[in-house]
């Protein structure tokens, strides 16, 4: 059986600067996989390439048995790959409800969309209470909830989350991580990019450590969490 997402020797460059220098990894259906590493390691670049916003220099991306190379971004979400981007990137002047509706832009099943919006509101009650509020007026944590909810609205086969904990208070971060754990236990396949290695590794099945465009270490979440070098480099221990 092949993996849901298969990335082989992916290279991505901005002009002459290669940000991703040949990485390979895979995500099995039902699994949570995390890419961790410092700023500039190439994690966000990797996700933006997978969702079609950037064109790879070389390498092969296979999703659900089909190649993704050369497929435009708006067609990739149609195949079941949703991307909650770094910095939330909500549509600030649209309401919470409108942002969620846009997450379901390609779906035609009105009843199903309404049911899924309700599901997001069940997951994050605060969003339901403020559904008519412009999303730009929300707090960072609320915006992150909405960004995740919006990505779920396409009913993705794979949910990619880029730095969901960025800039959040410890309490809010915990809430977001709990939600990711919950989504994972409900069977959502997740590819999580995080700088918060501790939180990401403790909920992931598989982890990959990235450094300046390369994967330098891979293993199960638990094993990486206990790995000496990872603890030193990313968990602030010496």
């Amino acid at each position, binding site marked *: 059986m092949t993996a849901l997402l298969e990335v082989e020797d992916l290279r991505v460059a901005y002009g002459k600067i290669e940000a991703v220098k040949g990485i390979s990894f895979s995500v099995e259906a039902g699994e949570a996989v995390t890419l961790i590493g410092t700023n500039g390691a190439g994690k966000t670049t990797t996700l933006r390439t997978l969702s079609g916003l950037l064109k790879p220099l070389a390498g092969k991306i296979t999703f659900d048995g089909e190649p993704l190379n050369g497929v435009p971004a*708006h067609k990739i979400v149609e195949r079941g790959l949703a991307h909650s*981007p770094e910095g939330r*990137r909500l549509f600030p*002047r*649209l309401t919470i409800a409108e942002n969620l509706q*846009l997450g379901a832009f*390609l779906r035609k099943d009105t009843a199903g969309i309404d049911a899924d919006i309700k599901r997001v509101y069940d997951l994050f009650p605060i969003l339901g209470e403020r559904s008519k509020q412009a999303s730009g007026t929300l707090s960072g944590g609320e915006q992150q909830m909405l960004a995740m909810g919006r990505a779920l609205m396409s009913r993705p086969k794979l949910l990619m989350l880029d730095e969901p904990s960025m800039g959040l208070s410890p309490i809010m971060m915990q809430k977001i991580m709990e939600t990711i754990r919950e989504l994972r236990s409900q069977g959502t396949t997740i590819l999580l990019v995080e700088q918060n290695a501790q939180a990401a590794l403790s909920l992931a099945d598989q982890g990959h450590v990235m450094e300046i465009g390369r994967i330098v270490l891979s293993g199960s979440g638990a094993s990486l969490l206990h790995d000496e070098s990872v603890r030193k480099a990313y968990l602030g221990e010496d």
Partner: protein
Amino acid sequence: MSELPQQLANGLILGAMYGLIAIGYTMVYGIVQLINFAHGEIFMVGGFGALSVFLALPAGTSLALALPIMLLGGITVSVLVGIAAERFAYRPLRGAPRLAPLITAIGLSIALQQAVWKWYPDGKQARVFPQFKGHSFDILGATVQRGDIFVLIAAPACMIALGFFVAKTRSGRAMQATAQDPDTAKLMGINTDRIIVLAFAIGAAFAGVAAVAYGLRTGEVQFRMGFIMGLKAFTAAVLGGIGNIYGAMLGGVVLGIAEALATAYIEEIPGMEQFGGGAWKDVWAFVLLILVLLLRPQGLLGERVADRA
């Protein structure tokens, strides 16, 4: 001051035309941050499109009957030119330094003028545009020509339709999303290339409507008519807050009325006698633009960004 209602009516009619054209500047800017300086010529070709339709109809067709088909003809020509401009002139330059599309726009503007000048039958001169015959109307103390009724109905109708489209339809929502964050719009599954084409097409369609209004009002169309009208409409878009569709219409009306009032009343101000009359009206329009840029650079409705699309 008995001529005040007349001046207000003149200003409103002119302003409604500016507003219709300004929508095209503001929508394209809102989506791709490009000032389409060829938009005045997209307006101009619409006038020739409508005239061509009229000339193709059997002689003696009443204007009232011909008008809907002329309108359709004008809109079609403007939209086709607008879409072609996007596809062949601007799209290849997406991501290029901003000066490149700007220069392209100016080049396109000259090319379109010259094309009409060279190839439209008798295009070197002003061509007579059909006029409504019959009495003018007296509305609240102002005399309004029959032909001007058209823009007074068309402009609000277009605005209401556009407002509904942007706020209530799926494509309108997609357009707002693309204006606010194009990359993320793609992640939602929105084909942003199509949305950009749609913005050009809607703007061009409104310019086509304005061109018919212009023809009916002035009784002629000519290859240069897009230059000053385009410049005024661009001023109106900036005045209203570029990127804001309601701002564009408001800016148009404010500009039209300011122009009409300045033309009529400036000369009554002691010491300003020599600045009155029609010869100075463009000056006052651009003085207003300079004042807005100095005092309120975001434009009149620049803060109500929630309406941007």
